[in-house]
């Protein structure tokens, strides 16, 4: 590498980073077009000719926290793909930040379905967050230029520090990410998704494979960020209970259909029975937890996620398996409810 090339790389790097960091202390929609962050009108999706879900009407405003719920294999992740513009909607209208999906770029932060870092990976958490800011730029930053480098470079460093503080990961951001616990890794990945100050955060099952105390604390973190950072959150979830206190809206996907609205409107015996065309009962435990009984699959269950994910397979068989599990799961969920942390606690659980 010649010195000239490297310096060029650094310059373009700083300028680009500065471009990302404009719009400090953004008020909701200030300086942006007054449009909904996500707008779905009669949207439906189909994979290989089979309609997964349909008739989704959803408006997500700035700073709202929306959960996408539904049984396994119903196409919750497909909704994420539609929002990201990876997969076109089969019907209806989809607008993300007022435009066609896939054109919003840095304005969308995306956290894919659970990925964990190998224990032997020797890269710090802060580096992974930093890659979220400028990892897609060509060239490498020249070592040692930070001292003499422009304010833009320092701003980028400051943004990384700020976002790590925001998710409460300062204590372990300088450790190799492979050595961090699952909850710690998930916080760092949320920081990575947030580092470009997106207006929409799309999270695919971020609580999956975390233990219950960590589920509660990461859910509280996401709830707080959606308010404090004015970022709309669309989160695919398997279990509504950890996030229920923070939700503004839910979308319940069902085979061929969908229901959306506030949690109080949607997660009811009446709405879900109509949606699933089968008697469903929604029970509320004394601590406010919701338990859905009798649907194709209760959202409360921590079952093997992929058991029912074989779309197009024998649906009835999957239903029967789900029912069997539900019966055995009843007592386990009571136990879980007993040792659940109070909602709103963001404290890290001990490793």
């Amino acid at each position, binding site marked *: 590498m010649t010195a000239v090339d490297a310096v060029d*790389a650094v310059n373009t790097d700083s300028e680009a980073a500065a471009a990302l960091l404009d719009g400090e202390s953004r008020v909701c929609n200030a300086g942006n077009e007054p449009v909904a962050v996500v707008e779905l009108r009669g949207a439906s999706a189909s994979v290989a000719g089979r309609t997964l879900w349909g008739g989704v009407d959803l408006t997500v405003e700035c700073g709202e926290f929306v959960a996408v719920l539904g049984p396994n294999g119903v196409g919750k992740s497909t909704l994420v793909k539609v929002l990201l513009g990876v997969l076109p909607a089969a019907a209806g209208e989809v607008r993300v930040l007022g435009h066609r999906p896939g054109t919003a770029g840095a304005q969308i932060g995306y956290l894919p379905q659970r990925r964990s870092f190998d224990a032997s*990976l*020797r890269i*710090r958490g802060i*580096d992974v967050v930093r890659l979220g800011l400028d*990892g897609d730029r060509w060239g490498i930053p020249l*070592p040692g230029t930070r001292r003499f480098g422009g304010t833009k470079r320092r701003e980028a460093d400051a943004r990384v520090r700020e976002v790590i503080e925001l998710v409460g990961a300062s204590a372990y951001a300088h450790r190799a990410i492979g050595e961090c616990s699952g909850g710690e890794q998930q916080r760092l990945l949320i920081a990575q998704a947030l580092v470009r100050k997106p207006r929409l955060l799309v999270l695919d099952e971020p609580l999956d494979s975390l233990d219950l105390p960590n589920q509660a604390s990461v859910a509280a973190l996401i709830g707080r960020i959606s308010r404090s950072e004015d970022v709309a959150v669309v989160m695919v979830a398997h279990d509504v209970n950890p996030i229920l206190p923070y939700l503004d809206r839910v979308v319940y996907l069902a085979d061929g259909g969908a229901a959306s609205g506030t949690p109080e409107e949607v997660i009811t015996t009446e709405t879900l029975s109509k949606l699933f065309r089968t008697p469903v009962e929604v029970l509320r435990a004394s601590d406010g937890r919701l338990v859905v009984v009798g649907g194709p699959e209760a959202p409360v269950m921590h079952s093997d996620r992929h058991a029912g994910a074989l779309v197009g397979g024998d649906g009835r068989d999957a239903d029967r398996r789900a029912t069997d599990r539900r019966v055995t799961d009843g007592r386990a969920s009571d136990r879980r409810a007993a040792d659940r942390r109070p909602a709103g606690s963001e404290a890290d659980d001990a490793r």
Partner: protein
Amino acid sequence: MPADSGLSWNLLSDIDQMWKLDSMVNAYRAGTIVAVLAAVVGWFVVLRRQTFVAHTVSLAGFPGAAAAVFLGVSASWGYFGFCIGAAAVIAALARSGKGGMAEESALTGIVQSFTLACGMLFVALYKGFLNGVNSLLFGSFLGVTPGDIAVLAAVAAVVLLAMALIGRPLLFASVDPAVADARGVPSRTLSLLFLVLLGATAAEVSQITGSLLVFALLVMPAATAQRITARPGRSLVLSVVFALAVTWFGLGAAYFSPYPIGFWITTFAFGCYLLANLYGFVVRWRGAGRRHMVEALGVS
């Protein structure tokens, strides 16, 4: 090996004497170029966990050099042709699959055994050549010509420039492929390009350490550096420092002893790796001890 070599009591005059030999100066030049290149490319190999592919690609240097000698052309052509060729074959065939690790490693193993078999074929075809097999496999630093150095330097410059250009997106795609893909990083193209760069690097390193011991410079310094620090910039620099130190000491030791260069470089590199592991162990042990104490104090 010069007959009158061997250490005397005056180390400085020994080194002075070594530097008077053109062949040694050339060997040091070539070794320096190769060490820097191997350390940088190897750092990504270790991070991406592509050591098996790296091993296979460097083994392809053996049939390459054997074929070149059999055909009567410069061995460097054989090294570059076969190493880059093997990398291209792996890249092309892995592309058709969905990039599953298991499939890729099976493919890599197939390419590896085939290249070794080809190597033995060329050795058998070229009858009087058997003495040279050792140096092809285990390295030699004698007979590096200024022309060789020019080629090594030119190829190294191109590879390092390419690495500087793709370094950050490649790091992103290596560490976090799902998000890198979503961000529009062409991770597939980058990994193919990296394989080709790896091929060129393996060809260079093979010429000093021999095909079997490429790991000594390609993987060991980088693995050692990554054991010591998780900061990417620092571990990259450390990796280069280790590779240079190991190469320079290895060349010196080989000059003053009857044992081959490959052995010395590998031994020094392995020693560094053991020390780094020991260091990592001590750091963790002390850290654990401190945590233990904090907990104990917190409880009491």
